[in-house]
């Protein structure tokens, strides 16, 4: 793969995996509940 293709993949991986990790790490710390 070209450098720009790898860069694009890394960008999306950071956004998606980072975003999901953020969400899962915040579960149960505010007003919400994991298991209802």
């Amino acid at each position, binding site marked *: *793969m*070209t450098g720009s293709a790898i860069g694009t993949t890394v960008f*999306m991986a950071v956004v*998606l995996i980072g975003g999901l990790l953020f*969400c*899962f790490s915040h*579960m149960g710390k*505010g007003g919400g509940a994991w298991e*209802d």
Partner: protein
Amino acid sequence: MPEAGREKFLKRRHMIFAAIGSAVGLGNVWRFPYMCYEYGGAAFLVAYVVGIFAIGIPWLLTEFAMGHYFQKGAPGVFKSIGKKWEWLGWFPSISAFLIDTYYVVIMAWTLIYFFSSMTLAWGIGEAGAQQAGDFFFKTVLNLSDGPGMIGGLQWPIVAASAFTWFMIYLVIYRGAEIIGKVSEIVMTLAWILIFVIIIRSVTLVGAVDGLNYYLDIDWSVLKGGQVWFAAFSQIAFTLSVGMAGMYTYGRFIAKKGDITNNTIITSLCDSAFAFLAGFAVFSTVGYIMQALGVTLQDVTISGVGLAYVTYPVGISLMPALNRLTGVLFFLMFWLIGLSSAYFLAYGGYIVPMIDKFGWERKKVALWGCVAGFVVGLLYCTQAGLYWLDMVDRTVAFYTLLLGGAGASLVVGWVFGADKLREHVNATSDIKVGPWMDYLIKIVVPLGLFFVVAYGGFMQDLKEPYGGYGSWANSIWILMVLVLVVSFVLQGMKSKDEIS
């Protein structure tokens, strides 16, 4: 209503799987990868990520939160805001019904391809590659020369459509509890299948060339409006907002169900599925280019042509595991379609009908599915593809976007974005600030109007959509019809008003 007595998802993961299942659909496979390639790879993704946070998440959050707040489907939500706004809830409900009528027919084609893959009915090797187009347009669709030449019903499509509606009925007639459980199984299977298909695809010769096309960067496109239109339109279509169903799913979230976190997880998982699907699509396209010695311009890489012509070409040419790859791909495709189809049916129009008229759920579910099947027979004819395209342009573009913009304005300015934010923050782990108010009140409606104006009116008023000539006027007629029926339903007395 007391928590114990109301209809809801049994587990939070059921809710998340159901919401992801509704969002992940055929467009994740046949639209997102093409958009990414066409609009500059990472440049498109930058616009897409901006759009997800500025439009997609606020829009989805609004629908979840309003359904949760009022414990009603879309029409009930807007009626609670003010009697005169009820039509704004019916507008997306009717759109959901119309979308489902042709969405199920696409699933029917998929089911036919699932079985056809077992024998590679369109042929194997280069001969199969040459016959794949004819197999779809002549054998499966028996396509006529235009929308006016309806022709006869294609009975295999009718049968596959009936089977799919029957499956939808089985999932929805017992309500949210079963929908949640089924969604968990369906989406888990779909994720496993997409990974299996990706592994198969990226190991093909030439796959890397295809991926380079998919992910190559062209930053210059960010200066123009086209990439922003492409990204915003993709977001509007991919999250299944503007189709009434997310109000219903929001209503099924438990009392302290964490609306914000569920919204972000749904949006990101949907985006992840689309991004990953691109690896399967473009790896296969790269392989076809290598095997047939053709360029990318010679290969259809979006829409029905991608799924039912290009992918079968790739399957025919594969050196091994052709049949298995075909079966797995079309099974995955059918499953992601199913989870969206029962969302459109139950969340989109069946629950609003139950809310309004107080009819029994099983009966509404049955007659809702029968009505969807009967209307969908239009797309089972020889002119079905043309009508599908025009109705899709109406209800999955114009009414979806205009209805979404109108709903956002009413929620933001009439109900109060601050009130919505207070409700969301009271139930959520991730708190949103006053900036969310501006997104709901200004950015979401403006973004949606921009997409309608830039990609819709400016083109369709210049020349008839799709080259259909005067038949394209059906788009405007259908739009008016949806609006009229919305007001008629608003004017009808509800069960509470009658009693």
